[in-house]
């Protein structure tokens, strides 16, 4: 543990940083704005997928294919993906900043958080918008008949 980072209580006050945008303030605003939207998006997601119809037993390829056929659910899921991963990565960054005292380790962890969030945002967005129910079907598979008919 390093104690050098904590200033002497009687040290002269350092002037606040003036240049550039205050990213921590925007992060604070983002957590609240995205949080409110995520409550609506995730509660809607859980209600439609787990409470309506057969509940969790209704979840399969056909269920998701049906949802992704509609631009409404495509945008619902993509919005949820972006907001949640950025909200989650920023929250994890706060926790890493609080507990990881070694600066090199802290930088690597924060960098890894944004890298994994970025990768999953890219992957998820591509999956939602390039999804084709007849992609990857095999002759013995459940979708073969349907896809041959097209």
């Amino acid at each position: 543990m390093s104690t050098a980072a904590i200033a002497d209580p009687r040290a002269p006050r350092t002037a606040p940083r003036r240049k550039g945008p205050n990213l921590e303030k925007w992060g604070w605003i983002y957590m609240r704005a995205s949080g409110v939207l995520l409550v609506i998006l995730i509660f809607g997601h859980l209600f439609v997928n787990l409470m309506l119809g057969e509940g969790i037993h209704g979840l399969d390829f056909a269920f998701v294919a049906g949802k992704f056929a509609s631009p409404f659910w495509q945008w619902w899921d993509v919005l949820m993906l972006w907001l949640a991963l950025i909200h989650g990565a920023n929250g994890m960054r706060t926790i890493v900043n609080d507990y990881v005292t070694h600066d090199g380790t802290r930088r690597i962890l924060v960098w890894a958080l944004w890298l994994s969030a970025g990768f999953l945002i890219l992957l998820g967005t591509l999956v939602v918008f390039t999804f084709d129910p007849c992609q990857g079907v095999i002759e013995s598979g459940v979708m073969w008949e349907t896809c041959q008919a097209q």
Partner: protein
Amino acid sequence: MWSWVLHRITGIAIFFFLLVHVLDTALIRVSPEAYNAVIGTYKNPIMGIGEVALVGAVAYHAYNGLRIILVDVWSWATRHQRQLWWGVIGLWLVTMLAFTPRHLMSVFAEIGGGH
């Protein structure tokens, strides 16, 4: 303090679930069989109990997050933050009472019956 500790713990848990959940949903792009095989594991009774824990974590994090916003922007809420936390717990209980029986009945109905 416990409201803050729980907010962190539920946040971390949800973040790690989210990482896995985006990857399992991405299998929809591979093939129907790959997606159904992996999503089938979520219907196992042990996972079913895990899903109750997940929904519990999401509901707490959501309601407590809304309480944090109110405490930040509204001086009445700042003065009554402690009582509001009990409101969060009450709302959480109502949510779990609505969700848990329905979900577990659906999960355990399948045992031995097949699909």
